[in-house]
């Protein structure tokens, strides 16, 4: 029987720190994907994820079971990425450069439908989006969050998020249509 997130949190709060590994194992990949989309490839994403898990552990008592743990955790990851993104100068340029130099990382599992050109162009296009639009479109499509969960994760209103997603989709289509890779 799979341990639910709430059960794992409860066990951790009862003093078993090792139970936190269940949550780390379960969400590490998604958190890394989210951080990589937001910050670009490179060491920053992994640092952000590690810091986010530590913050989540410190503040685990604030987690309320009625919320999805993933959404609560993503909020921390998003905040951590914002902090890291704000620290470094020219986030967009760095992101773009990192995407060009390293790509977004290789797929964990190669899939016949994988299209390298699509992936590379997508990373370039994501890097050219405004940070708030990139955040919205990544949470929406990469992490498949609802708008309410996105609002909880970002602290931005639902209507503003919808607008950002629309604009991001429009810009992504425009940019990727120009290059005609998809």
């Amino acid at each position, binding site marked *: 029987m799979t341990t639910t997130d709430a059960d794992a949190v409860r066990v951790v709060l009862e003093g078993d720190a090792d139970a936190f590994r269940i949550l780390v194992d379960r969400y590490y990949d998604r958190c890394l994907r989210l951080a990589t989309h937001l910050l670009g490839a490179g060491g920053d*994403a992994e640092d952000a994820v*590690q810091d986010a898990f530590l913050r989540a552990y410190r503040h685990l008592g604030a987690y309320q079971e009625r919320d999805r743990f993933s959404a609560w955790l993503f909020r921390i990851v998003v905040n951590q990425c914002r902090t890291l993104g704000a620290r470094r100068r020219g986030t967009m340029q760095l992101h773009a450069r990192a995407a060009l130099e390293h790509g977004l*990382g290789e797929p*964990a599992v190669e899939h016949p*439908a994988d*299209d390298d050109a699509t*992936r590379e162009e997508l990373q370039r296009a994501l890097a050219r989006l405004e940070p708030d639009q990139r955040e919205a479109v990544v949470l*929406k499509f990469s992490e498949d969050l609802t708008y309410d969960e996105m609002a909880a994760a970002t*602290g931005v209103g639902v209507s503003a998020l919808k607008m950002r997603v629309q604009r991001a989709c429009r810009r992504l*289509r425009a940019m990727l249509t120009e290059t005609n890779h998809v």
Partner: protein
Amino acid sequence: MFDAHDDLETLPPSLVAALRRDVRPTVERGAAVAAIMEAVRKEPAPRARTRFLGLRPKRPRWALRRGALSPAGAVLAACLTMAVGWLGALGGPRPVTTGARAAPERGLASGTVRVSAIRDSILDNAIVLAIRDTVRMVRFALEAPAASRVALVADFTGWGAQAVPLRRTAGEWSADVPVRRGAHRVGFVVNDSQWVGAGRAAARGFRVDTLALAPATATADTI
């Protein structure tokens, strides 16, 4: 192609798939997770938030969103705004404390104090501004044509630490200053050397005035 996916909030499936594809960490995954757990073990154990009477305080979802105002909140804000306006209207026209009334109380010659229909009160060296607003703009003016520099000092300026320089306009020095709710004591420093309390200003040939620029819910008093 994108022609088939021109909805406002959708992306082509190939892009969505690319976005959802896992990325390979630069550090081996197991090592990364182990590093996180090692750091976690060094942290003090988290504690569950204490509950009052077994209840966990719950915030509605709208309250979690920064910048969002619930319908109930909007109605409450509108009611409060209307109530404030209504209470202000109840106050009626602002009473004008004229120099003619204030001067004899302070033993000043009535002719030395300007009477103005729009001015709230005359400053004394121990003036009390009973301001009912949280913050309001107050114009402090000192008539000193011969002065080369005038500054306002008050309890809210730290008595000189953050003195407010007054600007000259046709012989009158004035400055608009945001003043917090409460009673305040003020004075002026002329030419960086002469401290002029408002009560003794008339005797020294100065004239002092205040003009509350905010709406009429505040009163000024002279002691």
